[in-house]
């Protein structure tokens, strides 16, 4: 009755080689940086997104946390691209949990992802 932590191949791949890891330097367009921090819950996320017009053209993240959390960050941030930043609020932690097979006790960490995306959506329309 050993509960070995199970990671799907998908989670392993997203965790080991997340294409959207990193930060965006200032550059063309507007770069929004947000963070959501809950180290005691095992989650820390920083997202930078470059917005041109009404569209996120590029997004990157830095994260500290468990493999499921990092995989969830990658997936959520990848999906920001090509959409208006406001769509981020439609992010559904429960759906992401199902998609990645995140165990129930880690659900609080997905709320940290949600927090970051909400902050992004709520960023003032014209920063600077």
């Amino acid at each position, binding site marked *: 009755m*050993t*509960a*070995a*932590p199970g*990671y799907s191949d998908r989670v*392993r791949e997203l*965790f*080991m080689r*997340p294409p959207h*890891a990193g930060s965006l330097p200032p550059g063309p367009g507007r770069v929004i940086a947000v*963070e959501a*921090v809950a*180290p*005691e819950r*095992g989650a*820390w*996320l*920083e997202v930078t997104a470059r917005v041109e017009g009404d569209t996120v053209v590029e997004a990157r993240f*830095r*994260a*500290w*946390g*468990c*493999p499921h959390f*990092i995989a969830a960050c990658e997936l959520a941030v990848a999906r920001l691209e090509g959409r208006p930043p406001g769509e981020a609020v439609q992010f559904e932690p429960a759906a992401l949990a199902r998609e990645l097979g995140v165990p129930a*006790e880690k659900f609080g960490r997905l709320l940290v992802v949600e927090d970051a995306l909400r902050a992004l959506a709520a960023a003032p329309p014209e920063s600077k």
Partner: protein
Amino acid sequence: MSGPVYLDYAASWPVHPRVAETMADCLGPEGPHANPSSSHAEGRRAAQVIEQARESVAALIGAAPKSIVFTSGATESDNLAILGAARAGRDRGRHLVTSRIEHRAVVDAFRQLEHEGFEVTWLRPGPDGRVAPQQVEDAIRPETLLVSVMHGNNETGTVNDVAAIGTACRVRGVLFHVDAAQGAGKVPVDVEAWNADLVAFTAHKLGGPKGIGALYVRAQPRPALQPLQFGGGQERGLRAGTLATHQVAGFGVACELARADLPEEERRVRGLRERLWAHLQTVGGTWRNGSAEASLPGILNVGFAGIEGESLFLALDGKVLASSGSACNSASAQPSHVLRALGLSDLACQASLRLSLGRWSTEADVQRAADAVAEAVARLRSLAPAAALERIR
């Protein structure tokens, strides 16, 4: 050479090939298959195999064969010692002393005794992870029945001065139990020098099979113990149940081999461990949990600033097999109670990794493991927000 590096010896050792051979002989067509309690010729043959192994097991810890009780492992030995001594002595006193860094087999046995009306003093170790003999002396009261302090810690490898603690107990007429599951076979153990009344150890941490262990029970004076299981009167009535001849035989051979190899292996493994530590320090932002001086040869517990343990674990998967705490605790995500007792924060516990070496560890293992850990730590750090790196340690 391309498989993962096994650095989880503190959780379990691979069985020594000579042990496996002995066990295969026992289980083979000509082996002593009969029940060693049977009085016929085949039963007596099995009993002889057991008595011979008992001598080897006893010799490893400087004990007389008749003071060895075979059990199913150190978990049972610890429970038999602690629950057994407390329940048998409850009319003489209800105060018990132990430490906050014990294995869960000890911790949970004492918690059970708290439910049964005993009062337990839980000693907190110093920042180096050691329980001072003076702390034990100070904790002992007239109604103290039993002190249990481990020899080498399974997470940090830190070794307590059990001889001094034993003296403090002996002088005050208090029973002294030692969990020596990690140290037996790795460093010299002498139950007499320790002044121990009860000592628990297990085969699978020294090259023997899993599922067999021993409890040393001093013969003179013999501590009263209430058995955990009752029945056929085996093991002087202290531990009923058919003895597993092949398991006992394997344990015996493992003890003989460990004893023969001990001085050389202790030096060799300690050397490898220190090289591993030297390599890992080049990663930067590392710290060592427990005492570097008073330590078992094979265990290294390292913290990595800015690292989340589960991610480090997965990043290493398939390259380095290690443990983020006691193997027995891995299923739960709780921070290690041992590291917490040393004063580490939850996050620093998480950021710690136990790397443990043993009989088959090599120089090449150390190099490969250090490289893999360095790479994984570097990648995770590069992935983390800069502020988190500051915060987590």
